[in-house]
C-alpha cells in the first residue's frame, strides 16, 4: 500500500543507535566475561588462557562461599520475612478507605531514594554513640549495640535497611493487584459469612498469587543485585562478614586488578542467577500460574 513503511533501510536507521548501544553494553560484555573468565590477566599485555583455574580457585575459596552465603541471607530474609510483611501491609491498606492515598504515597518514598544515601542515613542511625537506635536502647536501659562493626549484627543491620528501602515498593505492586480484584468476589464471600481473616486468606491471597510470585522472583533478583548498600554501609566488613558476590567481584576484579579472576566471578554470578531463576520457575511459578481469576 505504501512505500514509506516498507523500506528496510528506514527500520535500520531507526533501530541502529539502540542496537549498537545494546550490543555494546549488554551482549558484548556478557560474552567478554565468559571469554576472559578463562584467562589470567592483569590488564597489561595479553590475557593468557588458563582453563578452569579461576573457577576452581573461586569454588574452593571460603571467602567466595561466604559471599554466596550472604546473598543467600538476602534471599531468605526477603522471601520469608519481607514477603509476609508486604502481603500483610497490602491487605491492611486495601481495607482502609480513609487515607489510602497517603499510605500508598508515603510507603513508596524510600524506593525513589538513592541506595547510597539511604546507606549513609542508616549508618548514622546505627552510629554507636549518637545514632538513633542506640539512644533508644540506652533510654530503655539496655546495652548499646555495635550495629555495623560487630560481625554478628552487621549483616542483620544491612538486611533491615534493605527491607526498609524496598518493602513499600512491593506493597504498592501487591496493592494494585488487590484493588483490581472484582468487588463482587469479596462481596460474595461476605454474604457467605466469611470474616475478614477468612476473606484475606481464602479469597484475596489466592487471587493475588501470580503477583506474589512476581514479588518473590523480583526479591530474589534484588537479593542477587545487592551491592551498593553493602559497600556504603560496611564495605563488606567487618572481616568480610557482609561481603556479597558482587562486592567480592569488585574487591578482586577492580580493586586488585585481577581481571581474569574477576570475570570468572562475573560468570558465576550469571550462572547462580540463572540457576535460581530456573529453579524458581520450576518449583513455584509453574504452580502459581495455574490459579486463574475467573
Amino acid at each position, binding site marked *: 500500500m505504501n512505500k514509506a513503511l516498507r523500506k528496510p533501510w528506514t527500520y535500520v536507521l531507526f533501530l541502529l543507535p539502540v542496537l549498537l548501544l545494546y550490543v555494546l553494553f549488554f551482549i558484548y560484555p*556478557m560474552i567478554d566475561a565468559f571469554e576472559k573468565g578463562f584467562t589470567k590477566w592483569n590488564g597489561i599485555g595479553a590475557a593468557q588462557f588458563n582453563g578452569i583455574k579461576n573457577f576452581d580457585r573461586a569454588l574452593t575459596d571460603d571467602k567466595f562461599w561466604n559471599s554466596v552465603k550472604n546473598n543467600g541471607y538476602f534471599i531468605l530474609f526477603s522471601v520469608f520475612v519481607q514477603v509476609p510483611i508486604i502481603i500483610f501491609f497490602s491487605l491492611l491498606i486495601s481495607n482502609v478507605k480513609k487515607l489510602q492515598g497517603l499510605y500508598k504515597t508515603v510507603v513508596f518514598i524510600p524506593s525513589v531514594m538513592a541506595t547510597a544515601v539511604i546507606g549513609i542515613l542508616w549508618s548514622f542511625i546505627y552510629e554507636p554513640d549518637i545514632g538513633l537506635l542506640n539512644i533508644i536502647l540506652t533510654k530503655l536501659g539496655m546495652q548499646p549495640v555495635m550495629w555495623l562493626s560487630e560481625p554478628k549484627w552487621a549483616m542483620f543491620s544491612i538486611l533491615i535497611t534493605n527491607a526498609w528501602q524496598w518493602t513499600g515498593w512491593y506493597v504498592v505492586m501487591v496493592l494494585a493487584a488487590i484493588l483490581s480484584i472484582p468487588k463482587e468476589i469479596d462481596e460474595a464471600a461476605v454474604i457467605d459469612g466469611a470474616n475478614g481473616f477468612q476473606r484475606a486468606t481464602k479469597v484475596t491471597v489466592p487471587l493475588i498469587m501470580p503477583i506474589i510470585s512476581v514479588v518473590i522472583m523480583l526479591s530474589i533478583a534484588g537479593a542477587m543485585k545487592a551491592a551498593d548498600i553493602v559497600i556504603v554501609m560496611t564495605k563488606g566488613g567487618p572481616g568480610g562478614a557482609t561481603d556479597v558476590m558482587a562486592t567480592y567481584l569488585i574487591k578482586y576484579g577492580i580493586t586488585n586488578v585481577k581481571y581474569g579472576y574477576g570475570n570468572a566471578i562475573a560468570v558465576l554470578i550469571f550462572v547462580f542467577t540463572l540457576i535460581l531463576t530456573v529453579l524458581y520457575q520450576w518449583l513455584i511459578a509453574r504452580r502459581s500460574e495455574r490459579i486463574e481469576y475467573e
Partner: protein
Amino acid sequence: MTTTLRAAKKSIGHIILWVYLIIILYPFLFVLFSSVKSDNQEIASNPFGIPSTFHIENYYEAWVNAKISVYFFNSLYIATLCSIVSVILASMASFAITRMRYWKTSKGMYQFILIGMLIPGNALLLPIFIMLKDAGILGTHLALIIPYTAGAIPFTVIILSAFMRSLPGELEEASVMDGLSAKGIFVRIILPITVPALVTVFIVNFIGNWNEFLMANFFISTDELRTLPVGMVGFRDIYNTNYAQMSAGIVYSVVPVMIIYAVLQKQIIEGLTAGSVKG
C-alpha cells in the same frame, strides 16, 4: 455491637499503618533536625526534639566547602543528558519495532532487547570497566554517560513499545495517504501522542541515573567529576565526626527526588512497577 467492633478493627488497622509511616518518615525527620543542630553533643543529648538553635551554616558548609554543589551539578547534568538521549533513541527503536508492521523480524527484535532485563547488572560491571579502560574514557564523564544511556534501553523500549502498540493503526495509514514519510509519521504523529509515556520513562530513567552508585564509584576517580551519591559517601568518610553537616548533605541529596516524587508520583510508581513486572 458489630459496628463498634468493626470500627475498632478499622482503627487498629490505622494505628498499625501509622507505625509503619513513622518508621518510614522518622529517619528523614531525624536527619532534618540533626542538620541544623550545633554539634554531635546536641544530637546525642536531644535526638528527638526540635533543635534549640538553628545552625543554617551547616548547609552552607556542606554546599560550598564540602563540594556538595559540585557533585549536585555533575549528577544533574549527567542524569538529564542520559535520560533525554535514551528516551529519544528508545522511542525511535520502539517506533520501528511496533509501527512498521510489514517487518517480519519485529517480534524477534523486541525479544532480543528484552534479554537485557534478565542479565544481572553486577556481572557486567567488570567487563564494561575493562571496555571503557581500553577505549580510554575511564575516569571521564563519558564513562558514565554512555553506560547510563545504554543501560536504560531495555526498560525504555519495553514501556514505549507497549504504549505505541496500543495506538490504533489507522493513524499512520491516514498519514501515509497524506504523503508523510516514516520519519514524518514518527515526529508528527507518534511522538506527540506518546508524550505521557515519554515523560514517565524520562522521569524513571532520571531517578535511576541520579541514584546510580556502583559505576559512578568505580568508573570516576577525580573528586571534581563525582556524582552526588558517590560524593556523599566520600563526604561521610571524611567528615564522619560532624554529623550535623553530614545530615545537611543528606538533605541536599534527598530533596530533589522528594520534589520530583511529590509532583509526579503517579508516573513514577507506574513506570517503576511496570518496568519491574515485565522484567
